Protein backbone atom coordinates (compact mmCIF):
# COMPACT_ATOMS: atom_id res chain seq x y z
CA UNK A 1 0.00 0.00 0.00
CA UNK A 2 1.29 3.44 -0.82
CA UNK A 3 1.98 5.93 1.93
CA UNK A 4 -0.91 8.33 2.50
CA UNK A 5 -0.29 12.00 1.76
CA UNK A 6 -1.44 13.07 5.21
CA UNK A 7 -1.29 10.78 8.21
CA UNK A 8 -2.73 12.06 11.47
CA UNK A 9 -2.22 10.01 14.61
CA UNK A 10 -3.67 10.63 18.07
CA UNK A 11 -3.76 14.36 17.47
CA UNK A 12 -5.13 16.53 20.27
CA UNK A 13 -5.63 20.25 20.67
CA UNK A 14 -6.60 21.45 24.13
CA UNK A 15 -7.25 25.03 25.15
CA UNK A 16 -6.50 26.36 28.62
CA UNK A 17 -4.47 24.64 31.27
CA UNK A 18 -5.42 23.46 34.72
CA UNK A 19 -7.66 20.60 35.64
CA UNK A 20 -10.29 21.00 32.93
CA UNK A 21 -8.89 22.21 29.61
CA UNK A 22 -11.33 22.50 26.72
CA UNK A 23 -10.59 19.40 24.68
CA UNK A 24 -11.48 20.81 21.27
CA UNK A 25 -9.73 18.03 19.37
CA UNK A 26 -9.16 14.87 21.36
CA UNK A 27 -7.07 11.95 20.16
CA UNK A 28 -7.98 12.05 16.49
CA UNK A 29 -6.45 9.76 13.81
CA UNK A 30 -7.11 9.69 10.06
CA UNK A 31 -5.42 9.65 6.66
CA UNK A 32 -5.84 11.38 3.32
CA UNK A 33 -4.49 9.74 0.15
CA UNK A 34 -3.04 11.69 -2.77
CA UNK A 35 -5.78 13.13 -4.94
CA UNK A 36 -8.48 12.21 -2.44
CA UNK A 37 -11.12 14.52 -1.00
CA UNK A 38 -12.02 13.94 2.62
CA UNK A 39 -15.14 15.74 3.85
CA UNK A 40 -15.30 16.78 7.50
CA UNK A 41 -18.72 17.41 9.02
CA UNK A 42 -20.09 18.12 12.45
CA UNK A 43 -22.06 20.80 14.22
CA UNK A 44 -20.83 24.05 15.76
CA UNK A 45 -18.36 23.40 18.53
CA UNK A 46 -17.44 19.87 17.47
CA UNK A 47 -13.81 20.83 16.81
CA UNK A 48 -13.72 21.05 13.01
CA UNK A 49 -12.04 24.44 12.92
CA UNK A 50 -9.59 23.62 15.72
CA UNK A 51 -8.54 20.50 13.84
CA UNK A 52 -8.02 22.44 10.64
CA UNK A 53 -6.03 25.15 12.38
CA UNK A 54 -3.82 22.59 14.06
CA UNK A 55 -3.13 20.83 10.76
CA UNK A 56 -2.25 24.14 9.12
CA UNK A 57 -0.02 24.92 12.07
CA UNK A 58 -1.96 28.06 12.83
CA UNK A 59 -1.95 26.81 16.39
CA UNK A 60 0.15 24.25 18.29
CA UNK A 61 -0.93 20.65 18.77
CA UNK A 62 -1.21 19.56 22.40
CA UNK A 63 -0.06 16.04 21.54
CA UNK A 64 0.01 13.54 18.73
CA UNK A 65 1.39 13.70 15.26
CA UNK A 66 0.43 14.80 11.76
CA UNK A 67 2.72 13.91 8.87
CA UNK A 68 2.35 15.48 5.45
CA UNK A 69 4.40 13.77 2.77
CA UNK A 70 7.01 12.61 5.28
CA UNK A 71 7.24 15.91 7.21
CA UNK A 72 6.02 16.13 10.80
CA UNK A 73 3.71 19.16 10.91
CA UNK A 74 3.52 19.46 14.66
CA UNK A 75 7.31 19.79 15.02
CA UNK A 76 8.21 21.70 11.85
CA UNK A 77 10.04 25.02 12.34
CA UNK A 78 12.00 27.51 10.28
CA UNK A 79 12.81 26.49 6.73
CA UNK A 80 11.11 23.13 7.12
CA UNK A 81 7.86 24.90 8.06
CA UNK A 82 8.31 27.34 5.19
CA UNK A 83 8.54 24.41 2.80
CA UNK A 84 5.59 22.70 4.45
CA UNK A 85 3.37 25.72 3.94
CA UNK A 86 4.07 25.50 0.23
CA UNK A 87 2.56 22.04 0.13
CA UNK A 88 -0.55 22.79 2.13
CA UNK A 89 -2.67 25.76 1.31
CA UNK A 90 -6.04 26.93 2.55
CA UNK A 91 -9.20 28.46 1.14
CA UNK A 92 -10.99 30.40 3.85
CA UNK A 93 -14.69 30.88 4.43
CA UNK A 94 -15.01 34.61 4.07
CA UNK A 95 -13.75 35.95 0.74
CA UNK A 96 -14.26 39.50 2.03
CA UNK A 97 -11.85 39.20 4.93
CA UNK A 98 -9.25 36.89 3.49
CA UNK A 99 -8.03 39.13 0.66
CA UNK A 100 -5.99 42.25 1.43
CA UNK A 101 -8.18 45.13 0.13
CA UNK A 102 -5.15 47.29 -0.68
CA UNK A 103 -3.41 44.77 -2.90
CA UNK A 104 -4.14 44.54 -6.57
CA UNK A 105 -4.98 41.07 -7.82
CA UNK A 106 -1.66 40.62 -9.62
CA UNK A 107 0.18 41.29 -6.35
CA UNK A 108 -2.18 39.11 -4.34
CA UNK A 109 -1.55 36.20 -6.66
CA UNK A 110 2.21 36.63 -7.07
CA UNK A 111 3.03 37.36 -3.43
CA UNK A 112 3.56 33.67 -2.60
CA UNK A 113 6.15 33.47 -5.43
CA UNK A 114 8.04 36.35 -3.82
CA UNK A 115 8.02 34.46 -0.53
CA UNK A 116 9.15 31.22 -2.13
CA UNK A 117 11.86 32.36 -4.57
CA UNK A 118 13.02 29.92 -7.20
CA UNK A 119 9.60 28.54 -8.03
CA UNK A 120 8.53 31.00 -10.67
CA UNK A 121 11.02 33.55 -12.07
CA UNK A 122 9.80 37.12 -11.76
CA UNK A 123 9.73 37.59 -15.52
CA UNK A 124 6.97 35.00 -15.79
CA UNK A 125 4.78 36.21 -12.90
CA UNK A 126 2.38 38.07 -15.15
CA UNK A 127 2.00 35.16 -17.53
CA UNK A 128 1.48 32.65 -14.70
CA UNK A 129 -0.96 34.97 -12.92
CA UNK A 130 -3.10 35.19 -16.06
CA UNK A 131 -2.97 31.41 -16.47
CA UNK A 132 -4.15 30.93 -12.89
CA UNK A 133 -6.92 33.50 -13.23
CA UNK A 134 -8.15 31.77 -16.35
CA UNK A 135 -8.04 28.36 -14.70
CA UNK A 136 -10.42 29.63 -11.98
CA UNK A 137 -12.76 31.22 -14.51
CA UNK A 138 -11.55 34.83 -14.29
CA UNK A 139 -10.00 36.90 -17.07
CA UNK A 140 -6.58 38.43 -17.73
CA UNK A 141 -7.79 42.01 -17.20
CA UNK A 142 -8.90 41.12 -13.68
CA UNK A 143 -5.22 41.11 -12.67
CA UNK A 144 -5.24 44.92 -12.54
CA UNK A 145 -8.23 45.27 -10.24
CA UNK A 146 -8.69 45.41 -6.48
CA UNK A 147 -10.69 42.84 -4.45
CA UNK A 148 -13.49 45.37 -3.84
CA UNK A 149 -14.28 45.32 -7.56
CA UNK A 150 -15.33 41.66 -7.42
CA UNK A 151 -18.50 39.88 -6.33
CA UNK A 152 -18.47 37.31 -3.52
CA UNK A 153 -18.22 34.36 -5.91
CA UNK A 154 -15.39 35.98 -7.87
CA UNK A 155 -13.54 36.74 -4.65
CA UNK A 156 -13.76 33.11 -3.66
CA UNK A 157 -12.29 32.23 -7.07
CA UNK A 158 -9.43 34.63 -6.28
CA UNK A 159 -8.95 32.94 -2.91
CA UNK A 160 -8.71 29.59 -4.69
CA UNK A 161 -6.30 30.94 -7.32
CA UNK A 162 -4.08 32.30 -4.58
CA UNK A 163 -4.11 28.98 -2.73
CA UNK A 164 -2.96 27.24 -5.93
CA UNK A 165 -0.02 29.52 -6.74
CA UNK A 166 2.50 27.24 -5.06
CA UNK A 167 1.02 24.08 -6.52
CA UNK A 168 0.19 22.49 -3.14
CA UNK A 169 -0.44 18.78 -2.68
CA UNK A 170 -3.08 19.37 0.00
CA UNK A 171 -5.79 22.01 -0.20
CA UNK A 172 -7.70 22.66 3.01
CA UNK A 173 -11.10 24.23 2.33
CA UNK A 174 -12.70 25.63 5.49
CA UNK A 175 -16.36 26.32 4.65
CA UNK A 176 -15.38 27.65 1.21
CA UNK A 177 -18.92 28.09 -0.11
CA UNK A 178 -21.03 28.85 2.95
CA UNK A 179 -20.86 32.63 2.38
CA UNK A 180 -22.13 32.27 -1.20
CA UNK A 181 -25.63 32.18 -2.67
CA UNK A 182 -26.81 28.82 -4.00
CA UNK A 183 -26.49 29.73 -7.69
CA UNK A 184 -22.91 30.95 -7.20
CA UNK A 185 -22.01 28.21 -4.71
CA UNK A 186 -22.52 25.63 -7.46
CA UNK A 187 -20.00 27.48 -9.66
CA UNK A 188 -17.32 27.28 -6.97
CA UNK A 189 -18.09 23.63 -6.13
CA UNK A 190 -17.70 22.71 -9.80
CA UNK A 191 -14.49 24.72 -10.01
CA UNK A 192 -12.98 22.85 -7.06
CA UNK A 193 -13.93 19.52 -8.67
CA UNK A 194 -12.30 20.55 -11.95
CA UNK A 195 -9.06 21.73 -10.31
CA UNK A 196 -8.88 18.62 -8.26
CA UNK A 197 -9.10 16.42 -11.37
CA UNK A 198 -6.57 18.51 -13.29
CA UNK A 199 -4.00 18.77 -10.54
CA UNK A 200 -4.55 15.53 -8.58
CA UNK A 201 -5.11 17.69 -5.50
CA UNK A 202 -5.94 16.16 -2.16
CA UNK A 203 -8.55 18.14 -0.26
CA UNK A 204 -9.77 18.34 3.28
CA UNK A 205 -13.21 19.85 2.78
CA UNK A 206 -14.89 21.26 5.88
CA UNK A 207 -18.49 22.38 5.64
CA UNK A 208 -21.71 22.31 7.58
CA UNK A 209 -23.78 21.93 4.39
CA UNK A 210 -24.02 18.15 4.12
CA UNK A 211 -25.31 18.16 0.56
CA UNK A 212 -22.24 20.07 -0.60
CA UNK A 213 -19.96 17.70 1.32
CA UNK A 214 -21.60 14.68 -0.31
CA UNK A 215 -21.14 16.26 -3.71
CA UNK A 216 -17.41 16.97 -3.41
CA UNK A 217 -16.05 14.23 -1.16
CA UNK A 218 -14.77 10.70 -1.68
CA UNK A 219 -14.77 9.87 1.99
CA UNK A 220 -16.43 11.62 4.92
CA UNK A 221 -15.51 11.96 8.58
CA UNK A 222 -18.06 12.93 11.25
CA UNK A 223 -16.91 14.74 14.41
CA UNK A 224 -18.75 15.07 17.70
CA UNK A 225 -17.33 16.90 20.70
CA UNK A 226 -13.70 16.66 19.62
CA UNK A 227 -13.82 13.02 18.49
CA UNK A 228 -14.23 11.33 15.15
CA UNK A 229 -17.27 9.13 15.69
CA UNK A 230 -17.65 7.69 12.21
CA UNK A 231 -15.73 7.72 8.95
CA UNK A 232 -16.08 5.97 5.63
CA UNK A 233 -16.94 6.20 1.94
CA UNK A 234 -19.53 8.90 1.33
CA UNK A 235 -22.20 6.49 0.13
CA UNK A 236 -22.04 4.59 3.44
CA UNK A 237 -21.95 7.72 5.58
CA UNK A 238 -24.89 9.34 3.80
CA UNK A 239 -27.04 6.33 2.96
CA UNK A 240 -26.30 3.70 5.59
CA UNK A 241 -24.50 5.21 8.59
CA UNK A 242 -24.14 2.98 11.64
CA UNK A 243 -23.52 5.60 14.33
CA UNK A 244 -26.68 6.99 15.98
CA UNK A 245 -25.34 10.55 15.77
CA UNK A 246 -24.63 10.30 12.06
CA UNK A 247 -28.09 8.83 11.59
CA UNK A 248 -29.67 11.75 13.45
CA UNK A 249 -27.58 14.24 11.49
CA UNK A 250 -28.56 12.75 8.14
CA UNK A 251 -32.21 12.47 9.07
CA UNK A 252 -32.28 16.18 9.94
CA UNK A 253 -31.11 17.44 6.56
CA UNK A 254 -34.08 18.84 4.66
CA UNK A 255 -34.37 17.28 1.21
CA UNK A 256 -35.33 19.63 -1.61
CA UNK A 257 -38.24 17.45 -2.69
CA UNK A 258 -41.70 18.25 -1.31
CA UNK A 259 -43.01 14.79 -2.23
CA UNK A 260 -40.86 13.28 0.52
CA UNK A 261 -42.44 15.50 3.16
CA UNK A 262 -43.81 13.41 6.01
CA UNK A 263 -42.41 10.19 4.54
CA UNK A 264 -39.04 10.39 6.17
CA UNK A 265 -38.17 9.23 9.62
CA UNK A 266 -36.62 12.09 11.51
CA UNK A 267 -34.53 11.36 14.57
CA UNK A 268 -34.80 14.28 16.97
CA UNK A 269 -31.90 14.58 19.38
CA UNK A 270 -32.72 15.48 22.96
CA UNK A 271 -30.73 18.05 24.89
CA UNK A 272 -27.76 20.15 23.92
CA UNK A 273 -24.12 19.59 23.16
CA UNK A 274 -22.26 18.97 26.47
CA UNK A 275 -19.32 21.19 27.37
CA UNK A 276 -16.03 20.05 25.78
CA UNK A 277 -14.29 21.04 29.03
CA UNK A 278 -16.23 18.36 30.88
CA UNK A 279 -17.31 15.73 28.35
CA UNK A 280 -19.41 12.74 29.44
CA UNK A 281 -17.48 9.65 30.51
CA UNK A 282 -17.24 6.74 28.09
CA UNK A 283 -18.99 7.61 24.83
CA UNK A 284 -19.38 11.36 24.49
CA UNK A 285 -22.65 11.06 22.65
CA UNK A 286 -24.35 8.89 25.28
CA UNK A 287 -26.16 11.78 27.02
CA UNK A 288 -28.21 12.40 23.87
CA UNK A 289 -28.30 8.86 22.51
CA UNK A 290 -31.44 6.72 22.52
CA UNK A 291 -29.41 3.51 22.50
CA UNK A 292 -27.11 4.27 25.43
CA UNK A 293 -26.64 1.57 28.09
CA UNK A 294 -24.27 1.21 31.02
CA UNK A 295 -21.34 0.11 28.86
CA UNK A 296 -21.49 3.50 27.13
CA UNK A 297 -20.85 5.24 30.45
CA UNK A 298 -17.93 3.01 31.27
CA UNK A 299 -16.05 2.39 28.06
CA UNK A 300 -15.14 4.74 25.30
CA UNK A 301 -15.97 3.07 21.97
CA UNK A 302 -13.10 2.92 19.45
CA UNK A 303 -13.38 3.49 15.71
CA UNK A 304 -13.78 -0.04 14.35
CA UNK A 305 -15.34 -1.77 11.39
CA UNK A 306 -18.72 -2.83 12.76
CA UNK A 307 -20.77 -3.44 9.65
CA UNK A 308 -20.33 -5.23 6.37
CA UNK A 309 -19.87 -1.91 4.57
CA UNK A 310 -16.24 -1.78 3.36
CA UNK A 311 -14.26 1.09 4.82
CA UNK A 312 -16.93 2.24 7.29
CA UNK A 313 -15.49 2.72 10.76
CA UNK A 314 -17.86 3.47 13.62
CA UNK A 315 -17.16 4.38 17.24
CA UNK A 316 -20.26 2.99 18.93
CA UNK A 317 -21.00 0.04 21.20
CA UNK A 318 -24.43 -0.33 19.67
CA UNK A 319 -23.61 0.36 16.04
CA UNK A 320 -26.60 -0.21 13.80
CA UNK A 321 -25.87 -2.69 11.06
CA UNK A 322 -29.31 -2.50 9.50
CA UNK A 323 -29.88 1.21 9.09
CA UNK A 324 -30.47 2.51 5.63
CA UNK A 325 -31.68 6.03 5.19
CA UNK A 326 -35.35 5.89 4.28
CA UNK A 327 -36.13 8.02 1.28
Amino acid sequence: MTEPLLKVQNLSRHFGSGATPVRAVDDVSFEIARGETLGLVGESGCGKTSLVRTLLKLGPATSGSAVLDGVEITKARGSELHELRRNMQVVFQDPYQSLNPRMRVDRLISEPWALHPGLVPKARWREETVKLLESVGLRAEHADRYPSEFSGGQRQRLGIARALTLNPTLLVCDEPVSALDVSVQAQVVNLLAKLRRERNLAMLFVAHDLAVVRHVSDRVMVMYLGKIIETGPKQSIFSAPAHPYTQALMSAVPTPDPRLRGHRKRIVLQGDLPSPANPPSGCRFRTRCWKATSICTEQEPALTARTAAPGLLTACHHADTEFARRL
Partner: protein
Amino acid sequence: MALLEVENLQVSFDTASGRILALNGVSFSLERGEVLALLGESGSGKSVTAAAIMDLVPNPPGAIDRGSIRFHGAELLQLSRNERRDLCGNRIALIFQDALAALNPVYSVGWQIAEMYRIHGRNPEGGVEKAVIDLLKAIGIPDPERRARQYPHEFSGGMRQRIMIAMAVAVGPDVIIADEPTTALDVTIQAQVVDLLATIRKRSNAGMIFITHDLGVVAELADRVAVMYAGRIVETANVFELFEDARHPYSVGLLASQPRVDTDEDELVPIPGSAPNPVALPSGCAFRTRCPRAEGLCAEVIPPLETVGPGRQAACHFPVSPA
Protein backbone atom coordinates in the same frame (compact mmCIF):
# COMPACT_ATOMS: atom_id res chain seq x y z
CA MET B 1 -60.97 38.18 0.86
CA ALA B 2 -57.36 37.20 1.38
CA LEU B 3 -55.88 37.46 4.85
CA LEU B 4 -53.02 39.62 3.65
CA GLU B 5 -52.68 41.24 0.24
CA VAL B 6 -49.58 43.01 -0.98
CA GLU B 7 -49.99 44.88 -4.22
CA ASN B 8 -47.47 46.58 -6.44
CA LEU B 9 -45.22 47.41 -3.49
CA GLN B 10 -42.21 49.58 -4.24
CA VAL B 11 -39.56 50.30 -1.60
CA SER B 12 -36.39 52.29 -2.27
CA PHE B 13 -33.28 53.16 -0.30
CA ASP B 14 -30.89 56.07 -0.67
CA THR B 15 -27.32 54.78 -0.64
CA ALA B 16 -23.93 56.39 -1.15
CA SER B 17 -23.81 55.03 -4.69
CA GLY B 18 -27.34 56.09 -5.62
CA ARG B 19 -30.98 55.28 -5.10
CA ILE B 20 -31.78 51.59 -5.24
CA LEU B 21 -35.15 49.94 -5.70
CA ALA B 22 -35.20 47.18 -3.12
CA LEU B 23 -38.73 46.18 -4.10
CA ASN B 24 -39.99 46.95 -7.56
CA GLY B 25 -43.69 46.18 -7.84
CA VAL B 26 -44.16 43.16 -5.57
CA SER B 27 -47.65 41.62 -5.36
CA PHE B 28 -48.82 38.51 -3.54
CA SER B 29 -51.57 37.34 -1.25
CA LEU B 30 -51.68 35.09 1.78
CA GLU B 31 -54.63 32.97 2.91
CA ARG B 32 -55.47 31.63 6.36
CA GLY B 33 -53.70 28.39 7.24
CA GLU B 34 -51.29 28.75 4.36
CA VAL B 35 -47.47 28.81 4.38
CA LEU B 36 -46.10 31.04 1.65
CA ALA B 37 -42.34 30.84 1.17
CA LEU B 38 -40.50 33.88 -0.16
CA LEU B 39 -37.50 32.25 -1.76
CA GLY B 40 -34.55 34.24 -3.04
CA GLU B 41 -30.84 34.95 -2.71
CA SER B 42 -29.12 37.87 -0.94
CA GLY B 43 -30.44 41.21 -2.09
CA SER B 44 -33.54 39.82 -3.78
CA GLY B 45 -35.85 41.79 -1.47
CA LYS B 46 -37.23 39.05 0.79
CA SER B 47 -36.42 40.72 4.08
CA VAL B 48 -37.43 44.18 2.86
CA THR B 49 -40.85 42.72 2.09
CA ALA B 50 -41.13 41.56 5.70
CA ALA B 51 -39.90 44.93 6.96
CA ALA B 52 -42.48 46.79 4.85
CA ILE B 53 -45.34 44.68 6.23
CA MET B 54 -44.11 45.18 9.81
CA ASP B 55 -43.53 48.93 9.33
CA LEU B 56 -39.83 48.43 9.98
CA VAL B 57 -38.37 50.06 6.86
CA PRO B 58 -35.95 52.66 8.27
CA ASN B 59 -36.96 56.07 6.98
CA PRO B 60 -34.59 57.66 5.97
CA PRO B 61 -32.81 56.14 4.05
CA GLY B 62 -35.66 53.84 3.03
CA ALA B 63 -39.15 54.76 1.86
CA ILE B 64 -42.26 52.97 0.66
CA ASP B 65 -42.84 54.79 -2.63
CA ARG B 66 -46.10 53.22 -3.66
CA GLY B 67 -48.23 50.13 -3.38
CA SER B 68 -50.66 48.70 -0.93
CA ILE B 69 -50.65 46.26 1.97
CA ARG B 70 -54.13 45.13 3.01
CA PHE B 71 -54.80 43.11 6.13
CA HIS B 72 -58.36 41.70 6.33
CA GLY B 73 -59.12 44.20 3.57
CA ALA B 74 -57.90 47.26 5.54
CA GLU B 75 -55.09 49.33 4.05
CA LEU B 76 -52.12 49.27 6.44
CA LEU B 77 -50.19 52.02 4.72
CA GLN B 78 -52.88 54.56 5.60
CA LEU B 79 -52.97 53.79 9.31
CA SER B 80 -51.36 56.07 11.88
CA ARG B 81 -48.15 54.98 13.56
CA ASN B 82 -50.00 53.97 16.71
CA GLU B 83 -52.67 52.01 14.90
CA ARG B 84 -49.97 50.22 12.98
CA ARG B 85 -48.06 49.41 16.13
CA ASP B 86 -51.17 47.93 17.74
CA LEU B 87 -51.44 45.48 14.87
CA CYS B 88 -47.78 44.51 14.72
CA GLY B 89 -46.78 41.89 17.23
CA ASN B 90 -50.46 41.41 18.00
CA ARG B 91 -52.25 40.41 14.80
CA ILE B 92 -49.11 40.25 12.61
CA ALA B 93 -45.98 38.85 14.24
CA LEU B 94 -42.37 38.62 13.11
CA ILE B 95 -39.81 35.96 13.98
CA PHE B 96 -36.36 37.40 13.49
CA GLN B 97 -33.31 35.58 12.15
CA ASP B 98 -30.94 36.40 14.98
CA ALA B 99 -32.55 35.48 18.29
CA LEU B 100 -29.59 36.63 20.36
CA ALA B 101 -29.87 40.13 18.92
CA ALA B 102 -33.66 40.18 19.10
CA LEU B 103 -34.02 39.14 22.74
CA ASN B 104 -33.31 41.64 25.48
CA PRO B 105 -30.29 40.43 27.49
CA VAL B 106 -31.29 42.12 30.77
CA TYR B 107 -34.78 40.69 31.21
CA SER B 108 -35.63 37.10 31.96
CA VAL B 109 -37.10 35.04 29.16
CA GLY B 110 -40.35 34.58 31.06
CA TRP B 111 -40.66 38.33 31.55
CA GLN B 112 -40.16 38.94 27.84
CA ILE B 113 -42.81 36.44 26.81
CA ALA B 114 -45.20 37.83 29.44
CA GLU B 115 -44.60 41.29 27.99
CA MET B 116 -46.42 40.19 24.84
CA TYR B 117 -49.61 39.65 26.88
CA ARG B 118 -49.17 42.88 28.86
CA ILE B 119 -48.48 45.14 25.88
CA HIS B 120 -51.37 43.79 23.88
CA GLY B 121 -53.73 43.83 26.88
CA ARG B 122 -54.44 40.12 26.92
CA ASN B 123 -55.55 38.19 29.97
CA PRO B 124 -55.02 34.53 29.20
CA GLU B 125 -57.06 32.01 31.14
CA GLY B 126 -55.28 30.99 34.35
CA GLY B 127 -53.07 34.08 34.34
CA VAL B 128 -50.05 35.30 32.43
CA GLU B 129 -47.56 33.28 34.44
CA LYS B 130 -49.29 30.00 33.66
CA ALA B 131 -49.59 30.95 29.99
CA VAL B 132 -45.82 31.59 29.81
CA ILE B 133 -44.98 28.24 31.41
CA ASP B 134 -47.42 26.42 29.13
CA LEU B 135 -45.87 28.08 26.12
CA LEU B 136 -42.32 27.13 27.17
CA LYS B 137 -43.53 23.58 27.68
CA ALA B 138 -45.13 23.58 24.25
CA ILE B 139 -41.89 24.58 22.54
CA GLY B 140 -40.03 21.79 24.30
CA ILE B 141 -38.05 23.67 26.95
CA PRO B 142 -37.42 21.25 29.83
CA ASP B 143 -38.08 22.44 33.40
CA PRO B 144 -40.09 25.51 32.25
CA GLU B 145 -40.80 26.92 35.74
CA ARG B 146 -37.11 27.35 36.42
CA ARG B 147 -36.14 28.25 32.84
CA ALA B 148 -38.68 31.10 32.71
CA ARG B 149 -36.59 32.97 35.29
CA GLN B 150 -33.37 32.63 33.30
CA TYR B 151 -31.84 35.12 30.87
CA PRO B 152 -31.26 34.71 27.12
CA HIS B 153 -27.53 34.00 27.53
CA GLU B 154 -28.36 30.93 29.61
CA PHE B 155 -30.04 29.22 26.64
CA SER B 156 -28.55 27.50 23.60
CA GLY B 157 -29.00 28.99 20.13
CA GLY B 158 -31.76 26.58 19.20
CA MET B 159 -33.66 27.25 22.42
CA ARG B 160 -33.39 31.01 21.93
CA GLN B 161 -34.83 30.65 18.45
CA ARG B 162 -37.71 28.63 19.85
CA ILE B 163 -38.28 31.27 22.54
CA MET B 164 -38.47 33.92 19.80
CA ILE B 165 -41.09 31.78 18.10
CA ALA B 166 -42.99 31.42 21.38
CA MET B 167 -43.04 35.20 21.78
CA ALA B 168 -44.30 35.67 18.24
CA VAL B 169 -47.17 33.22 18.64
CA ALA B 170 -48.03 34.01 22.28
CA VAL B 171 -51.05 36.20 21.58
CA GLY B 172 -52.26 34.17 18.60
CA PRO B 173 -51.49 36.39 15.60
CA ASP B 174 -53.31 35.94 12.27
CA VAL B 175 -50.14 36.38 10.25
CA ILE B 176 -46.72 35.04 11.26
CA ILE B 177 -43.71 36.23 9.28
CA ALA B 178 -40.56 34.16 9.80
CA ASP B 179 -37.44 35.85 8.43
CA GLU B 180 -34.76 33.16 7.87
CA PRO B 181 -35.49 31.62 11.29
CA THR B 182 -33.25 28.59 10.67
CA THR B 183 -30.35 30.12 8.78
CA ALA B 184 -27.77 30.40 11.56
CA LEU B 185 -28.59 27.01 13.09
CA ASP B 186 -27.00 23.57 12.85
CA VAL B 187 -29.01 20.96 10.93
CA THR B 188 -30.30 19.03 13.94
CA ILE B 189 -31.44 22.28 15.59
CA GLN B 190 -32.83 23.54 12.29
CA ALA B 191 -34.95 20.38 12.08
CA GLN B 192 -36.37 21.09 15.57
CA VAL B 193 -37.32 24.64 14.57
CA VAL B 194 -38.90 23.55 11.27
CA ASP B 195 -40.94 20.92 13.16
CA LEU B 196 -42.05 23.53 15.69
CA LEU B 197 -43.20 25.89 12.94
CA ALA B 198 -45.07 23.06 11.22
CA THR B 199 -46.84 22.23 14.50
CA ILE B 200 -47.80 25.86 15.09
CA ARG B 201 -49.16 26.13 11.60
CA LYS B 202 -51.33 23.03 12.09
CA ARG B 203 -52.69 24.21 15.41
CA SER B 204 -53.23 27.89 14.81
CA ASN B 205 -54.67 28.32 11.32
CA ALA B 206 -52.61 31.51 11.00
CA GLY B 207 -51.14 32.45 7.65
CA MET B 208 -47.36 32.18 7.56
CA ILE B 209 -44.82 33.95 5.37
CA PHE B 210 -41.58 32.00 5.47
CA ILE B 211 -38.54 33.85 4.18
CA THR B 212 -35.56 31.72 3.20
CA HIS B 213 -32.91 30.91 0.63
CA ASP B 214 -32.91 27.22 1.53
CA LEU B 215 -34.71 25.01 -1.00
CA GLY B 216 -34.71 22.09 1.42
CA VAL B 217 -36.59 23.99 4.11
CA VAL B 218 -39.06 25.27 1.50
CA ALA B 219 -39.76 21.69 0.40
CA GLU B 220 -40.43 20.68 4.02
CA LEU B 221 -42.71 23.51 5.07
CA ALA B 222 -44.25 25.59 2.30
CA ASP B 223 -47.60 25.27 0.54
CA ARG B 224 -46.89 27.94 -2.00
CA VAL B 225 -43.66 29.61 -3.10
CA ALA B 226 -42.91 33.07 -4.47
CA VAL B 227 -39.45 33.18 -6.04
CA MET B 228 -37.82 36.63 -5.84
CA TYR B 229 -35.02 38.07 -7.94
CA ALA B 230 -33.66 41.64 -7.86
CA GLY B 231 -36.68 43.14 -6.09
CA ARG B 232 -39.41 41.36 -8.03
CA ILE B 233 -41.40 38.17 -7.78
CA VAL B 234 -40.44 36.16 -10.86
CA GLU B 235 -42.53 33.06 -10.24
CA THR B 236 -45.29 31.84 -7.94
CA ALA B 237 -46.48 28.25 -7.79
CA ASN B 238 -47.53 25.65 -5.30
CA VAL B 239 -44.55 23.88 -3.82
CA PHE B 240 -44.97 20.65 -5.80
CA GLU B 241 -45.29 22.45 -9.13
CA LEU B 242 -42.25 24.56 -8.44
CA PHE B 243 -39.95 21.62 -7.68
CA GLU B 244 -41.24 19.43 -10.52
CA ASP B 245 -42.04 21.90 -13.20
CA ALA B 246 -40.59 25.38 -12.69
CA ARG B 247 -41.30 27.87 -15.49
CA HIS B 248 -39.00 30.80 -14.86
CA PRO B 249 -35.40 30.17 -15.99
CA TYR B 250 -34.15 31.57 -12.67
CA SER B 251 -36.19 29.05 -10.65
CA VAL B 252 -35.01 26.27 -12.94
CA GLY B 253 -31.40 27.41 -12.49
CA LEU B 254 -31.74 27.61 -8.71
CA LEU B 255 -33.03 24.04 -8.53
CA ALA B 256 -30.23 22.74 -10.75
CA SER B 257 -27.58 24.47 -8.62
CA GLN B 258 -28.60 22.71 -5.44
CA PRO B 259 -26.64 19.56 -4.58
CA ARG B 260 -28.66 16.82 -2.89
CA VAL B 261 -27.83 14.90 0.21
CA ASP B 262 -29.70 11.76 -0.86
CA THR B 263 -28.12 11.08 -4.26
CA ASP B 264 -24.82 11.45 -6.11
CA GLU B 265 -25.17 13.82 -9.01
CA ASP B 266 -22.45 14.07 -11.66
CA GLU B 267 -22.11 17.79 -11.92
CA LEU B 268 -24.09 20.74 -10.67
CA VAL B 269 -25.44 23.14 -13.24
CA PRO B 270 -24.80 26.61 -11.83
CA ILE B 271 -26.35 29.86 -13.00
CA PRO B 272 -23.55 31.78 -14.75
CA GLY B 273 -22.47 35.18 -13.42
CA SER B 274 -23.69 36.74 -10.18
CA ALA B 275 -26.62 38.81 -8.96
CA PRO B 276 -26.72 42.26 -10.63
CA ASN B 277 -25.65 45.43 -8.86
CA PRO B 278 -28.89 46.99 -7.55
CA VAL B 279 -27.66 50.49 -8.46
CA ALA B 280 -27.35 49.53 -12.11
CA LEU B 281 -29.87 46.82 -12.90
CA PRO B 282 -29.92 45.54 -16.48
CA SER B 283 -32.63 47.08 -18.65
CA GLY B 284 -35.73 44.99 -19.22
CA CYS B 285 -35.61 41.70 -17.35
CA ALA B 286 -33.03 41.88 -14.54
CA PHE B 287 -32.19 38.19 -14.98
CA ARG B 288 -31.44 38.39 -18.72
CA THR B 289 -27.66 38.78 -18.30
CA ARG B 290 -27.51 35.34 -16.65
CA CYS B 291 -30.33 33.71 -18.58
CA PRO B 292 -29.80 30.98 -21.21
CA ARG B 293 -33.12 31.84 -22.89
CA ALA B 294 -32.68 35.62 -23.18
CA GLU B 295 -33.40 37.30 -26.52
CA GLY B 296 -33.60 40.88 -27.77
CA LEU B 297 -37.03 41.50 -26.29
CA CYS B 298 -35.72 40.77 -22.76
CA ALA B 299 -33.44 43.83 -22.86
CA GLU B 300 -36.30 46.13 -23.87
CA VAL B 301 -39.42 45.12 -21.96
CA ILE B 302 -39.73 44.15 -18.32
CA PRO B 303 -41.77 40.93 -18.33
CA PRO B 304 -44.93 41.26 -16.19
CA LEU B 305 -45.99 38.52 -13.78
CA GLU B 306 -48.53 36.62 -15.87
CA THR B 307 -50.67 33.58 -15.29
CA VAL B 308 -49.05 30.49 -16.81
CA GLY B 309 -51.35 27.87 -15.36
CA PRO B 310 -53.97 27.36 -12.68
CA GLY B 311 -52.82 29.27 -9.60
CA ARG B 312 -49.36 29.96 -10.94
CA GLN B 313 -47.58 32.89 -12.48
CA ALA B 314 -44.23 33.64 -14.06
CA ALA B 315 -42.56 36.88 -15.15
CA CYS B 316 -40.74 35.79 -18.28
CA HIS B 317 -41.07 36.43 -22.03
CA PHE B 318 -39.83 32.93 -22.83
CA PRO B 319 -40.88 30.69 -19.94
CA VAL B 320 -39.73 27.09 -19.83
CA SER B 321 -42.38 24.80 -21.36
CA PRO B 322 -44.46 22.63 -19.05
CA ALA B 323 -42.76 19.38 -18.16
